């Protein structure tokens, strides 16, 4: 809708590629790294390698269907990648399961207060990971497109093919869920002023 003079938009590249397919390569050069990072963040680098090549093959096949009212192809490309990622939910589940451990590995230096903070962070991450895992695939897609791919509500709507209002309600719901799990976590009340006795208590085990 808004054309920026002197900068070639994604839309123009895609339009040109109808008759000059080779031009489509420019789109790859612009967005490949960001797409790969997003896919790797949700799964692992080797899955991301596949997602990257498949996303651009699919995009190339579908280039005539691109909505030229949009200048930016990111929502379109992230939408394709998101669909493809659905097939890799096991890899994503493994990533989520490993999240809390990833924080723990960081924790080997520093003083007591910092250790306590780290412990809090670990717990927060565990809860976040559990919540992410419990989300429906649609909700998780919306949340991660927002938080990790930096798409706006409108762009997420475009990427996932739903109205912006639905995106807004999904994100509100998921963010409420994230807050609720954090709030009901009994172990999240650990004091962080560093005046505990010698060492932080191990996390209470309910059972």
């Amino acid at each position, binding site marked *: 809708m808004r054309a920026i003079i002197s900068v070639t938009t994604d839309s123009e590249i895609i339009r040109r590629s109808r008759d000059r397919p080779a031009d489509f390569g420019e789109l790859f050069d612009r967005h490949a790294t960001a797409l790969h990072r997003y896919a790797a963040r949700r799964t692992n680098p080797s899955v991301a390698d596949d997602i990257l090549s498949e996303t651009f093959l699919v995009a190339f096949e579908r280039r005539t269907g691109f909505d030229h009212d949009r200048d930016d192809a990111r929502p379109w490309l992230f939408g*394709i990648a998101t669909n493809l990622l659905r097939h890799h939910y096991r890899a994503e589940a493994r990533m989520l399961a490993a999240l809390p451990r990833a924080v723990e590995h960081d924790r080997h230096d520093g003083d007591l207060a910092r250790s306590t903070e780290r412990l809090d962070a670990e717990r927060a991450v565990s809860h976040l990971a559990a919540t992410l895992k419990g989300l429906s695939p649609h909700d998780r897609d919306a949340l991660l497109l927002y938080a990790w791919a930096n798409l706006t509500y409108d762009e997420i709507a475009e990427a996932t093919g739903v109205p912006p209002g639905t995106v807004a309600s999904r994100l509100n719901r998921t963010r409420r869920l*994230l807050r609720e799990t954090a709030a009901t976590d009994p172990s999240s009340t650990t004091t962080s002023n560093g005046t505990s006795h010698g060492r932080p208590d191990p996390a209470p085990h309910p059972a």
Partner: protein
Amino acid sequence: MDDLTLLRTLRDDVASPEADALTRARVLLTTRIHEEEALMARTPATSTTATRRLRPKGSGLGRRRLGGRRLGGLAFGAAAVAAAIVVGATVLPGTGGAAQASDVLDAAAAATIRQADPVVAPGQYLKIETTGISAATLGLEGDRYLQWLDETTSTLYVPKDANDLWVLKNGLAKPVTFFSGAAKKWALADFEKKSASGSGSETLRGRGGDFGGDTPAVQSPSETAAIAELPRDPEALLAHFRAEAGTTDVHGDAETFTLMADLLRSGQAPADLRAGLYRALAMIPGVTVSDEKATLDGRSGVALGLDDGDVRREIVVDRDSGLLIGERAVLTKARGDMPTGTVVGSTSVKTSVVSSAP
């Protein structure tokens, strides 16, 4: 640190792609581009259909989700929007004596098993015609947007031998219901532009149901095989689709419901599987009958479904034959200019056997 800030920091340290990986992906794309150029050089730029290339096999794209949520270009379920019918604010029959969902589904299961599946002879095609209305939202500057409903028909021709050539005709989406004057003006103008240029409608052909790209087609032979392998036992089916949906909470069950409804709607589930699916649907908590006389595409049946808080997803079943007439999604909460009770997604499916494909 709040929830979102924390989430944004997680896995922020993921490495950028290896140069190798980028090169490999770029080469794959370039190879595909060269194929296209070669084709364009050979064929005058007339038919895009005939020159449409099939995606290379083994790229992993064939592994679409069973009963994937899109069929013939029509999105359904949470992603869906649409339908020409505004049911009004009272979707649920207020009177007592409403049929129990489990009774209806049980009866449908019993009826469907007696229903003979269409027999496709060599040289014939199973014709699956899907009509649906989907909502479109166009975002404008700021928070403003236009909303309207599009009607689309797509027709799929499945050959007797699933490895032969399939044909998929996708019609142009036609705007039919508008939620503001501005939306009407824009949507109709856009429709005229597209029908004049011939864009927006297409006929795809592909061996084995593979139309290339991410064409939201149907089951490829591998998926047809996967359908054959699905359990018929309702409990096992429910467990299978819950795992597919990835969750067990109410939102997960809404997704589970949609996945099973999509498979029923695909027209490709054999009678014994349909019966199992109906019985599995009856086992999902919260599934209720909402409309005993729902009309979809001129046919009437019982609507039953599940409310996820925003949308009630429903299937409409012919009580006598146990055949699925279609699916619909009814807003249980206003969405933008669309009031509660708007049917924001509907798809109906008709199957028949024909002796030729276009």
